[in-house]
């Protein structure tokens, strides 16, 4: 422990939260920790807006004829649910909140490399979100979050342009965040913090940032082309204007498949931190876990064609995309096995973050394995475009990414706020979310296999039983998400004061007081050993 300030109670100490007050001190801050909190507030709002659309959908689908809205409105609900959850919640979630807070702290730096650009990222995000919110309030959009052409360019009569403009602007936010992280990790590591001494969360952030800066410009270009065709009628995608409708899908998935890894890789990083802390073990197979993140980031760019097996893409292209998609499964499997092996002979505590991490591993395993059905050509033909896909990606993005995000929020909450939350409630909520999630999405695997297409506002009677089950599960899941919202907000004021390191975790962020001072560390820390030096051993990794 290099700090002495840790022992002074937070109330009588100056830290990043009480260093100054007032709205301006937040809106003009360049402190990465405050920007992280700005993001936390904004993406939480977006999560519950997107979630509200999901609730309406699940209520609507209780009856085959639909109980709530007209098909036109239903189409807008699933579109806006997707747009909000993907562009304004999942993509920024772990990187912009936890990454922002932790990247400088984990490397022993005072801030990110470009603090002002970091603030600019948040403003771009807010502008993007505001434009998309305008699109919703003005009347909504009905293209699906995938904006497939020529429907989006020629046929849809809804607010396509504002929606894609919102996603376009928010894209620059993630490009700048990625750039900031890469430079920071390269240039600002504390003395002694070599690449292979870094916590795996940093490796995950690094891999994610690479995808952000390489992939996001492509979706920006693609969305611009949609706007150009829609407004100026330049034939790019619509065959009636001489365009190619499948060109859009190639460009869109070239970003949007890697975007899935923007959502899941950070979650994997969080899980590596949580599992080690609550089993008091060094991660099993550090280098394998670290390099599997990079392997996923690289392979992720080469598999977009598996979204297009039934478009009439050449069968030979299909074959290559299929084999590459199977290859992504391997680094993912390596991670799961290494996390599990980390528990071996550990000292395992069932704190709330650990329960989320267990949930993540289980649900990610199911999400990953059901991905094999879709990498495989013959089965994908039947399952593509059905509820099987919906279930699969929710297991990855909600069962995986959101579980990890909540686990991370619970893990670092004492550090971020200086307060503890009620652990019993937190464990109860983790359990409710796990059960509610499975009840919601497991029936959808069966629905998809039985042939129910996704994006159906009304459906044949034979699919009703499973839809009712899914809706019932969603009501439990919804309650599960509200519980943490309540006790976390409560804890900010009334929670017991947290010590510098309430979990007995390793890592530089735990060696400074909770909440940390604005400059993070009183003096630049020196690193003499690898990450996860639990078990009292020195120089763990070579």
């Amino acid at each position, binding site marked *: 422990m290099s700090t002495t300030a840790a022992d002074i109670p937070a109330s009588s100490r100056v830290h990043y939260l009480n260093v100054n007050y007032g709205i301006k001190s937040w809106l003009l801050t360049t402190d990465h920790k405050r920007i992280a909190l700005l993001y936390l507030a904004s993406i939480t709002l977006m999560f519950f807006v997107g979630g509200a659309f999901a609730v309406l959908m699940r209520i609507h689908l209780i009856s085959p004829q639909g109980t709530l809205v007209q098909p036109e409105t239903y189409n807008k609900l699933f579109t806006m649910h997707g747009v909000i959850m993907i562009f304004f919640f999942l993509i920024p979630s772990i990187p912009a909140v936890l990454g922002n807070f932790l990247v400088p702290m984990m490397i022993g730096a005072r801030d990110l490399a470009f603090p002002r650009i970091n603030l600019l990222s948040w403003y771009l995000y807010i502008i993007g979100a505001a434009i998309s919110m305008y699109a919703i309030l003005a009347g909504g959009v009905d293209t699906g979050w995938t904006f497939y052409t020529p429907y989006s360019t020629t046929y849809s009569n809804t607010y396509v342009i504002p929606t894609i403009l919102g996603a376009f602007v928010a894209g620059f936010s993630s490009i700048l965040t990625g750039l900031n992280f890469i430079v920071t990790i390269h240039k600002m590591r504390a003395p002694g913090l070599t690449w292979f001494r870094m916590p795996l969360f940093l490796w995950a952030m690094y891999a994610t940032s690479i995808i952000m800066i390489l992939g996001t410009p492509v979706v920006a270009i693609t969305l611009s082309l949609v706007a150009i065709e829609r407004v100026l009628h330049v034939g790019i995608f619509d065959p009636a204007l001489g365009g190619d409708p499948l060109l859009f899908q190639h460009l869109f998935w070239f970003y949007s498949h890697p975007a899935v890894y923007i959502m899941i890789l950070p979650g994997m990083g969080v899980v590596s931190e949580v599992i080690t802390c609550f089993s008091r073990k060094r991660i099993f197979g550090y280098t394998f876990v670290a390099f599997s993140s990079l392997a996923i980031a690289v392979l992720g760019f080469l598999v977009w064609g598996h979204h297009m097996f039934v478009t009439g893409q050449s069968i030979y292209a299909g074959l290559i995309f299929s084999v590459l998609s199977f290859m992504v499964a391997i680094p993912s499997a390596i991670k799961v096995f290494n996390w599990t092996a980390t528990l071996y002979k*550990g000292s395992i505590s069932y704190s709330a973050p650990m329960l989320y991490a267990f949930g993540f591993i289980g649900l990610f395993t199911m999400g990953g394995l059901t991905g094999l059905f879709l990498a495989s050509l013959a089965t994908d033909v039947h399952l593509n475009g059905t509820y099987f896909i919906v279930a699969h990606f929710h297991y990855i993005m909600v069962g995986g990414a959101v579980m990890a995000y909540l686990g991370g929020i619970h893990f670092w909450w004492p550090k971020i706020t200086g307060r503890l939350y009620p652990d019993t409630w937190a464990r109860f909520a983790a359990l409710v979310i796990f059960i509610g999630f499975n009840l919601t999405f497991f029936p959808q695997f069966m629905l998809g*296999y039985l042939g129910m297409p996704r994006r159906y506002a009304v459906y044949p009677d034979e699919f009703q039983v499973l839809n009712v089950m899914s809706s019932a599960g969603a009501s439990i899941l919804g309650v599960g998400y509200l519980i943490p919202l309540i006790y976390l907000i409560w804890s900010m004021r009334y929670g017991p004061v947290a010590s510098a390191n309430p979990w007995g975790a390793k890592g530089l962020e735990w060696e400074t007081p909770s909440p940390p001072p604005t400059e993070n560390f009183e003096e630049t820390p020196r690193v003499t050993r690898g990450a996860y030096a639990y078990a009292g051993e020195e120089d763990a990794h070579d």
Partner: protein
Amino acid sequence: MMLLQGVPIHPEQGSTIAKDVDALHFFLTGITLFFTALIFAIILYFAVKYRRRSEAEQPTATKTFLSLELAWTLVPTLLCAIVFTWSSSLYFRNSRPPRASLEVFVIGKQWMWHLQHPEGPREINALHVPVGVPVKLTMTSEDVIHDFYVPAFRIKKDVLPGRYSSIWFQATKVGSYHFFCAQYCGAEHSMMIGWVEVMTPTDYEAWLAGGTKGESMAQSGERLFTQFGCATCHVPENTGKCPSLVGLFGKPVKLRDGRTLIADEAYIRQAIVQPNSMPLPGYAPVMPSFQGQINEEQVLQLIAYIKSLASQEKTQGK
């Protein structure tokens, strides 16, 4: 679980490939259940066995075993290789329609399916086919991307504007099977559904005869050929002004830019809609474009007519 009693294990197996696809599906389900159960069981076992018994507990470090890392890299790799090989060979086998397939033409438009049999009968949101005979669907869209999906047959293919896609199946059981639009296409996407009616061959013949009130597709095409003025130039005797269309279908055609294309459905469609995109050597590019003046159904009928000219030539040649 009582609730699930009415829910089948798998969708109806109504085509020759359904059982094969299901076998692979169940194999993958087995892998999924096995590994999920394995991971859950190990986590649970470790979590109980190595639970923290005192706050001061300090476990010793475990060394990373290279052999273990290799094992859990190689086993998934091997399993993936098996599934890939199995799945791809099945997909390859299923992707080519048998030569002697019955042909039906499908046009998707917001928000209904138009189908036409070469003999003439037209259907909306229904497809009548005989059992035990391979059927090839040639499909295109009048507007946005649709997707023709018959769960019971385990077949699905996007239906795209501006091009033809095809798909085939051979039904194994008489009955009615749902078909769906499986690519989101706008407001009434979820109502763009219909039934495949699989009939005995005798019933099918009777249905076909009952539905053939007017002309066959080729006859409709011949009528359109005159109506659109094609017949003024494209006369059977090669006058030098326009290429003759007799015997054209299925033959290679050399374009002015040196490309050689096969005169298939896509070629003929392109030649009608955007003739200037494929100039022929020896002919002035005088043909007007019919884009926007002719619908996809009419294009298909013209193609049927041009096809019939090809077989006329064969008969004449004999």
